[in-house]
């Protein structure tokens, strides 16, 4: 025998963790090689001793804890967990998370934005834009690019996030139900909408799952005084904010949404769809005025804002502002609709999020994974018809 096996191979052999063909070879070698056989014996003895010590840890393991009790203990924490995927997994899913962030700026700014009065693109236009869906029964969407200068002004707005002009939305009634569905047909029935599916994927999905979230309702209150101050700071002086806006809470009805998830090799595509939420404003509020204020807030000159504002049906139009000149946010065509694309990269995995709307039906498609390109994401979105 000219060669000997090293400890690692012998240890693997001892644990029967070497491939069969190599196993036979080693066995044959051991027959003839006293050196290796002796080392193997030593290694086995060592393992036996160490494993013996470690097995003392077993003690109470003979009486294993009951899974029922353990699950019962965990359950309250599950209920307390927000019903949407975390931002750690996906940089963008948080963008469209319907549960609001615990602290208010992004939320409040977003809600304001849906009223047509964005006061902040902090912490990013995505987060603000995200919230739009909750509060509009939008039939159409206008995308408005906001200049970098304006974005900076909005970010520097001297507004204390904690005492913003909007209260934190509070839920009215029970938490929305979460129900799994076995098929898109079943999910559609549960949600009461004609849910659709993408037909184009980077590769055939290996797993598909559906979840329907039931309807829910929220309300929030506008603080008219601070809102007026913010507008004045931004130089928007030709719009009067009526006291009525703060007189009663604004209510937001969120219809059920269908969430479908497709997983394949190196990608996950999630499609969220539903009817746009409806927003009920207090009596005496002129939506057109608020809309014009919003356009000015986005940086549009007063006369242009006024002209455009008259053409828009503010009851059914979503104004979707996005910062101009950013490679991470751009307008895209999704089939015959206009949409907006957000992109991010995390740990080498791509993350694309596309929002678009057909009539009052909204869609958010998120595509994540290492094997994805923007073309895959757009192609998946366009295949939903």
């Amino acid at each position, binding site marked *: 025998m000219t060669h000997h096996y*090293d400890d*690692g191979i*012998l*240890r*693997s052999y001892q*644990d029967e*963790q070497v491939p069969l063909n190599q196993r036979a070879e080693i066995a044959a070698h051991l027959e003839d090689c006293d050196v290796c056989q002796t080392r193997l014996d030593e*290694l086995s003895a*060592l393992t*036996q*001793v*160490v*494993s*013996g*010590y*470690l*097995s*003392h*840890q*077993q003690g*109470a*393991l003979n009486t*294993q*804890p009951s*899974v029922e009790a*353990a*699950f019962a203990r*965990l359950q309250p*924490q*599950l209920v307390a*967990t927000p*019903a949407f*995927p*975390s931002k750690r*997994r996906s940089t963008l899913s948080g963008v469209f998370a319907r549960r609001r962030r615990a602290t208010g700026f992004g939320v409040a700014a977003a809600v304001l934005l849906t009223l047509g009065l964005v006061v902040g693109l902090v912490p990013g236009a995505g987060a603000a834009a995200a919230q739009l869906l909750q509060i509009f029964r939008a039939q159409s969407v206008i995308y408005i690019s906001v200049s970098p200068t304006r974005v900076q002004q909005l970010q520097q707005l001297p507004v204390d996030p904690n005492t913003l002009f909007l209260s934190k939305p509070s839920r009215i009634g029970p938490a929305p139900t*979460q129900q*799994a569905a*076995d098929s*898109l*047909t079943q999910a*559609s029935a549960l949600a009461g909408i004609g*849910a659709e*599916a*993408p*037909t184009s*994927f980077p590769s*055939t*999905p*290996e*797993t598909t*799952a*559906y*979840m329907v979230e039931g309807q829910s309702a929220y309300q929030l209150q506008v603080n008219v005084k601070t809102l007026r101050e913010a507008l004045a700071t931004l130089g928007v002086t030709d719009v009067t904010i009526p006291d009525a806006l703060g007189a009663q809470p604004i209510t937001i009805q969120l219809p059920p949404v269908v*969430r479908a*998830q*497709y*997983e394949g090799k*190196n990608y996950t595509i999630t499609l969220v769809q539903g009817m746009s939420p409806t927003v009920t404003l207090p009596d005496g509020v002129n939506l057109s005025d608020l809309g014009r204020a919003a356009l000015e807030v986005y940086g549009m000159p007063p006369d242009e804002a006024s002209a455009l504002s008259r053409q828009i049906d503010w009851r059914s139009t979503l104004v979707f502002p996005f910062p101009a000149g950013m490679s991470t946010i751009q307008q895209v065509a999704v089939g015959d609709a206009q949409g907006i694309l957000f992109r991010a990269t995390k740990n080498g995995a791509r993350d694309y999020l596309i929002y678009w709307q057909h009539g009052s039906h909204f869609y958010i498609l998120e595509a*994540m*994974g290492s094997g994805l390109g923007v073309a895959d994401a757009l192609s998946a979105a366009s295949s939903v018809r």
Partner: protein
Amino acid sequence: MREDQQVQTTSSPSDSDRHLLARTRLRDAAAFERLFRRYYHSVYRVVYRMLGDDDTASDVAQETFLTLYTHPPQLHTDGEEIRAWLYRVALNRGYNALRSKRRAQARLPAVYESVYAAEEAVDPELEALRAENRVQVRAVLATLPERQAKLLLLRQEDVKYTEIAEILEIAPGSVGTLLVRAERAFQLAWNQLESKTSPPKGELQP
């Protein structure tokens, strides 16, 4: 929805790990519960071996599953992969608990006493010996480099080399070698600790 838009997918069986995980990602509590039931004992066991204490092991196992619920991983195969992920999370948390516990226990003899007191002994002498042993195992594990401690615990659970490699993010071919190294380190640390503390019962037999 139009029927011709239905996607043809090669769905994995409805109780496969991947499927349950996908549903967990959609916050389907029932799917999560199935994963919990499927893997709870494995996770608890490996952590218990490391910590030798039910309360802490239960806590670590709970935290591990809560992480699975709040941050479900992206997996591409069934079975081993999710278990590997759970082990990885549990061992990381367990090792942290082990280290902080060890730091908290300034003097070993004090621990001996508390363990003696806490154990409900059937055969007092044997139980005392076991308890003593458990404390020492924990102490030794805490002195080992993290990867070595984890290797030993995983192998003690009969986890296959390929899976160990995945959990610890090491080359499958190096598992045997690292395992031998870990065992030698364990034995050395054990002997050193023993000579330092001179336990009353003489040589400990496994």
